[in-house]
């Protein structure tokens, strides 16, 4: 695989590094500044949190696809790994977060601040 396109591989690695760095810098900058219109508004959670989550998934995609070379694996091997993990994680997170919200609604009124 790598023999076919020798230097472009190295170039692509540095490109992805640049991209991951930029994404991280954006995340950190937003995390420090916390603009009010993003921090205090949003659906479900704040827009800022949605931005963080989406940028995290972008980073995860590039790490898995380029660094771990998932893009070069056979289609169904890739799916066996990615679909399994993604499905189970979404399932688990959904159930636990719903439960967490329920616990809050049930227990929070009992706390006297």
């Amino acid at each position, binding site marked *: 695989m790598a023999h076919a396109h020798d230097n472009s591989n*190295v170039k692509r690695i540095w490109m992805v590094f640049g991209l*991951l760095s930029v994404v991280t810098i954006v995340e950190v900058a937003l995390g420090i500044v916390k603009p009010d219109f993003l921090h205090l508004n949003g659906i479900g959670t704040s827009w800022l949190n949605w931005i963080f989550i989406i940028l995290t998934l972008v980073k995860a995609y590039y*790490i898995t696809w380029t660094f771990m070379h998932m893009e070069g694996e056979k289609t169904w091997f890739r799916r066996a790994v990615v679909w399994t993990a993604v499905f189970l994680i979404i399932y688990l997170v959904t159930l636990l*977060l719903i439960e967490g919200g329920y616990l809050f609604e049930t227990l929070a009124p009992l706390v006297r601040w």
Partner: protein
Amino acid sequence: MEANIAVSSEKKPTWGGGGVRPFGASYGKMMMWFFIVSDALTFSGFLAAYGLTRFKFIDSWPIADEVFTHIPFIHGEFPMYYVAFMTFILIFSSVTMVLAVDAGHKMNKKKVTWYLFATIIGGLIFVGSQAWEWKTFIKGSYGAVKTTDGKILQFVNESGKQIALSDFVVGDRGDDKVTQTRKNGLWFESGESVGQYSVAQVISSYNANPSIQIRSEKIDLDTKQKIILSREKGAAELAKAKLVVEGANLEVNEYGNTIFADFFFFITGFHGFHVFSGIVINIIIFFNVILGTYERRGHYEMVEKVGLYWHFVDLVWVFVFTFFYLV
């Protein structure tokens, strides 16, 4: 035996699946991927449990960028910078690792050696940084008071900025307690060490200084800031104080809910342990590269396999970073 296997393993190397390559992936690489899936689910379990707990205490959870504000050698408050640095170190060590894998494809032993070396150094810097982060968190920054109903009370000055106990607590403990040591020549049962400040001392200092206010754990949902109590309400809360808390551990946490500290230690500790084992594996492979093991074997796939593990550790950190420090 013959009846149970699809492909005869006679005269083939049986370790590694006897040369059978389903999906064009070698046995070792495929198993590394399946291990990564299971490990990813373990981490998801932890992070989802963290999410559940955070949702459960959504109106009083510690605000992360008020917790992790320190960087080494410099005083002051710098939220996020240090973790951002740690993230960069880990991403960069991932890059050197993928460059080592790439050099391995080209059978360039010298480059593999140097890139792997850089990866190990990056890993060591990361673990070292994490140890420092733990130390700072355990030591604490301001100190707080815990009440009998389990709330943490922090102290702020008139501009609403948090201040340390040492900034306003005056006088002495008032109960003559000291930590006894063996040097005192006393026979004593081992016991908890006595802190610098007593509850009574903190209460009298609060009453004596009208510019001090108390900040509760409760979050105002409109501003996403912790609510600062009035002097009177603060005094009423402070009357319930039972413990002066400095720093964080598995039992108390000056920054707020104790379970926040528990999750912090557990999740970053589990991740740190992964980084540590990754470094050990990388060192083993590093010496194999130097000894020419893979040169003789004809391929550097082993570097690729440990590379997968190393990238996975980086991948997990990306999520830990988001859900512990950003969100």
